[in-house]
């Protein structure tokens, strides 16, 4: 937990740094006439201070009872990483391939690999879900889903 708090505080410190750096690039204004950089600068500064406080708190606190399991859960964490990557790939394929093909592929992956269903369930499930979501969102609700190849 302490280590994770430290990582969190470093990440927040980086965010604060970006905020400070970016906010001085736009006019700060004065306290009588605050400009667009005014609040981002102060919020960034507060965030930086809080990050430092959290870091020291984590350093001087006695260790908490149970450590937080990170990407654990009986060795299931690779599935989380895989799902995350699959979704990122999906966002890149959605426009070139279109909604139908890319969704079908994503669902097969999620059902078969992450959900551990057999191929039969994976394929029929993917076809049915793709078909019905296409029907509901594109045909009935007229959402402009990417056409791609189809």
């Amino acid at each position, binding site marked *: 937990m302490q280590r994770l708090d430290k990582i969190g505080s470093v990440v927040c410190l980086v965010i604060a740094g970006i905020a400070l750096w970016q906010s001085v690039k736009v006019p700060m204004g004065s306290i009588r006439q605050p400009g667009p950089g005014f*609040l981002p600068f102060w919020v960034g500064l507060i965030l930086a201070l809080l990050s430092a406080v959290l870091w020291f708190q984590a350093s001087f606190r006695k260790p908490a009872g149970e450590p937080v399991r990170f990407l654990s859960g009986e060795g299931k964490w690779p599935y989380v990483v895989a799902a995350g990557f699959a979704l990122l790939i999906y966002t890149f394929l959605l426009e070139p391939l279109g909604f139908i093909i890319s969704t079908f592929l994503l669902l097969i992956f999620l059902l078969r690999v992450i959900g551990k269903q057999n191929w039969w369930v994976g394929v029929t499930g993917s076809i049915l879900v793709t078909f019905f979501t296409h029907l509901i969102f594109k045909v009935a609700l007229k959402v402009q889903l990417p056409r791609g190849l189809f």
Partner: protein
Amino acid sequence: MGYGDSILLGFSVCLQPINLFYCFIGVFIGTLIGVLPGVGPVATISMLLPATFKMSPVGAIIMLAGIYYGAMYGGSTTSILVNIPGETASVVTCLDGYQMARQGRAGPALGIAAFGSFIAGTFSVVALTFVAPPLATIAIRFGPPEYFSLLVLGLTLLIYLAHGSMIKALMMACVGLLMSFIGLDNISGFERFTYGIATLEDGLGLVPVAVGVFGLGEVLSNIEESAGKREIFQAKISSLLPNRQDWKDSAMPIVRGSVMGFILGILPGGGHVLASFASYAMEKRFSKHPERFGRGAIEGVAGPESANNAGAGGQFIPLLTLGIPASPVMALMLGALVIFGLQPGALLMTRNPDLFWGVIVSMYLGNIMLLVLNLPLIGLWVRVLRVPYPFLFPLIVLFCLIGAYSINNNIFDVFIMVLFGIIGYLMKKVRFEAAPMLLGMVLGLMMEEALRQSLIMSGGSFQIFVTRPISAGFIIAALVLLAIPAIRGGKKILVAKLTENE
């Protein structure tokens, strides 16, 4: 326009078949997602927001509101039967509700939760009817300093209620504020934090971030925890009707829960979660047999369940009268209103009385629908719970993706959603809460505008926030709230329960 006319107007709007239909759909979906752990009202409303663009504004808001208070009903079912809270607001219901179910009293527990919710929900709508108009007239006189102080109060409250470390919550609120500054500055037109990415000029979308953090992030952590295996309490639910003794025990908790829930709901940042915890703490204190709490005391179900429903109703007050969203859900409602070209706030009631009263009256009808829907359909909801997670999560993921895409038909939003899904998962792991971040993001621009205008008004003096009476009141309230012991008690239970759950 008197109250009578207003309410009649509301009924005339609400009883149109199409609006009744939207109301029904709303409460039905709300109950469904309330029952399903891992899908909350925030994710659902953001996913369905684009689908409402084709509806009338009144219909859309009626449906979205229905989803919200419907979820409050549904959440209790899983708490009682499975010991898994469907919503955060139902966490305390697990304490006594599940114990009751184990003692073979699942029926009365579900029954009192439904009746209590109904009574409290109706109470809060009646109170909303009478409190909102006078508040709206006061709110017209609010200037930038009042708004700024109120927003500070809201954020303070939310941070105080953080499950774990207050410092972390404060940090997340700061990150949220910084996220809200992305895009063009409202006042000067300068670009901030865009790095030349054209899509970022309009700012970071609330919907992709909310769907990512609350929808996808939740799915990712459930994949890891293999939530597919859920023990469902296999008990025959004989009678849902609580007996005479149950009613006698529950009457006062329901009344107290309703009143307190409503009051806490009004405060920005408070809302239904705080309401249910505070009610539990209060009932334990009022009870002649506090030792029965945690062992199946019906008061421990009746009070919190009433309080969270009353809180849900109360939350509409800051939105409808001040234009300030008290919670992420209300922020999405605000987004919906803005998309329909309506200006939420003090003038909404006079400019769009059909929407204002139509939505309020729809909540009366929605509460009746929920009672009718819930009692006979509990069997169905239990069956929904048995749907294995491997079938459920691909659907949730898909709805998240479509919801994020369809808001602007922009692939960049999908990318942001996936990114924040991963960030949300990591935040959950390291116990950085998402709610303060999202609220900071929602309130950021409003706060900035109010602060800058206030400082221009005062010529650079911060005294303006304490010399104006209403503004000073909010600042004092923020300080006083930190000292209310009842909330402390609630918070302790919350912390204990959450660490136990994880």
